[in-house]
């Protein structure tokens, strides 16, 4: 299993200091956005990271491609630890891993044309000897992602949200990466456009043998696109496993309630559902024991005292003292 893994994360921890601006001598408080997360992503697989805001999923995505440095723990891409690489080796490594962003507006430089945006990574890595070749390749990539070449010299703002997302995907593909982090790639899109982009991502994966980390809060999309899924709560893993199994029979109470909370587009399935009470606890001051216990309807005494370990059973792991079976 692990020799197949293309991406391997080992006990990742990431702390951010929250410092009042300009006051350098005051002691900075810190927030642990990611607290000891490990996972593996196999070649050609879609691994989904789900959870609500503040659960650390975007941070993990950035850690996994070296855009952020972990406070502790390590990331291996194709067996090589990112933290050990020198600047120039890291630059070479970057061509293996890329990222697609959520916001199709802020992810493209408003002062560049679509063609230049996609060509930029090619030029930065001097993939081609001439600029003209890079532009030609950029044109090809845009077409592959459904942007016709007649539009390639337009500026980003002249495209619709869906088209912009396609340009972002073309840019991510430019260096022929094997691993792509998709950070909420369809959350900002209209319903009718979402499925276009999802289909494109799936097609590209089949064509180019890509591994995806698919970060999303939309469980329906995750269910559709992913092979395996990791549910997170406040910087910790709740459970990891095969998507169909987790969605079919969640073992962690959070997963179960999260699934129930999603409004179903079918009025015949209306029911008075259990609503998860309370708010997301503060990451600055996380609850003792199991981080979910303040909101968990099934909690018992031990939950507030002892943090449950991630129990691994086959390819399914769960971190709960009293998991559903």
């Amino acid at each position, binding site marked *: 299993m692990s020799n197949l893994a293309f991406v391997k994360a080992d006990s990742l921890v990431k702390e951010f200091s929250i410092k009042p601006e*300009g006051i350098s001598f005051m002691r900075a408080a810190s927030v642990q956005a990611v607290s000891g997360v490990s996972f593996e992503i196999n070649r050609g697989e879609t691994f989904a990271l789900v959870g609500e805001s503040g659960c650390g999923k975007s941070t993990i995505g950035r850690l996994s491609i070296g855009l952020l440095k972990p406070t502790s723990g390590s990331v291996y891409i194709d067996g090589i630890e990112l933290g050990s690489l020198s600047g120039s080796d890291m630059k070479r490594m970057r*061509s293996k891993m*890329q990222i697609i962003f959520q916001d199709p507006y802020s992810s493209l*430089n408003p*002062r560049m044309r679509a063609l230049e945006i996609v060509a930029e*990574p090619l030029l930065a*890595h001097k993939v081609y000897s001439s600029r003209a070749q890079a532009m030609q390749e950029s044109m090809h990539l845009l077409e592959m992602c459904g942007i016709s070449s007649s539009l390639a010299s337009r500026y*980003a*703002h002249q495209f619709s949200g869906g088209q912009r997302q396609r340009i972002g995907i073309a840019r991510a593909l430019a*260096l022929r990466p094997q691993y792509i982090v998709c950070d909420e790639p369809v959350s900002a899109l209209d319903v009718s456009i979402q499925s276009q982009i999802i289909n494109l991502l799936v097609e590209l994966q089949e064509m180019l043998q890509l591994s995806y980390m698919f970060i999303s809060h939309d469980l329906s999309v995750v269910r559709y696109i992913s092979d395996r899924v990791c549910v997170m709560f406040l910087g910790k893993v709740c459970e990891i496993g095969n998507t169909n199994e987790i969605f079919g029979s969640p073992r962690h109470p959070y997963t179960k309630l999260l699934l129930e909370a999603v409004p179903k587009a079918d009025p015949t399935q209306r029911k008075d559902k259990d609503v998860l009470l309370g708010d997301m606890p503060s990451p600055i001051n996380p609850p003792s024991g199991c981080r979910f216990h303040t909101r968990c309807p099934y909690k018992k005494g031990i939950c507030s005292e002892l943090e449950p370990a991630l129990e691994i059973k086959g390819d399914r792991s769960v971190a709960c003292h009293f998991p559903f079976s």
Partner: protein
Amino acid sequence: MQNQEEALHADTALLRIAAMLRTDKKAAFGAVVIAIFILVALLANAVSPYDPYKIDLANRLGPMSAKHLAGTDSFGRDVLSRIFYGARISLVIGLLPSIIAILIGTALGLVSGYYGGFIDFIIMRLADIVLAFPSLLLALVIMYSLGVSLLNLFIALAVINWGVTARTVRAQTLSLREKEFVEAARACGVSDLAIMFRHILPNCIPTLLVILTLDIPEAILSEATLSFLGVGAEPPTASWGLMVSENKQFLFSQPWVAIAPGIAVLLLVISFNFLGDGLRDALDPFMSE
């Protein structure tokens, strides 16, 4: 929301400015007056009826007349010609030190915002220091220390005015640095320098333009004031501030001679202010970014 995003764009910026000039009468007035002053300054020797330095003691403090449209000063020099020549000093002092200050401020602001940390701390404290001085007093001290001359005035104004630009560019850099297109460039292995020049700087340009149109009138006023106080241009230079100062003792007998150069200052400065306000309105989404 989409409209605002669209506004955040380069080639629409020019269109927006053009549209602004068409609809904003005050800004259009400003642009026209500035253009006239620039023409007068360039062609001063052609449009001036007299040599601005020619002393004619027989015609001292002459009234407004067909021969001397704005009268003559205490040395009998033609006031209108001196005002025309004075436009040169005001425009050069208004434009060049401001541009230099903006270049300095932009460079420091970019580095400060992009790299952060210690270098940011140092640059920002320097900016705090420059900004905490009352600008006129700082200029006085610099002129005292370097000696009175137009060149030194030039240096003083450039040194004083970079603070605001540095702070603004830093703030913009900080917010742009977090934008996903900058992250994407980093993920692609684009170098820091290329990110600063290709991704950050171009998105700051509209803001810089607005700062420039607000700095220029300040600089013009500073030159006039310092020259008035005797620590700017030196006699017999035709500088508007100096002209008021030279003739202020005749204010009650021959008011026009002291007042006319001030009208020129007012016209030029208010024109820049009108244009600057128009630009700010037109480019507003950039500013609030």
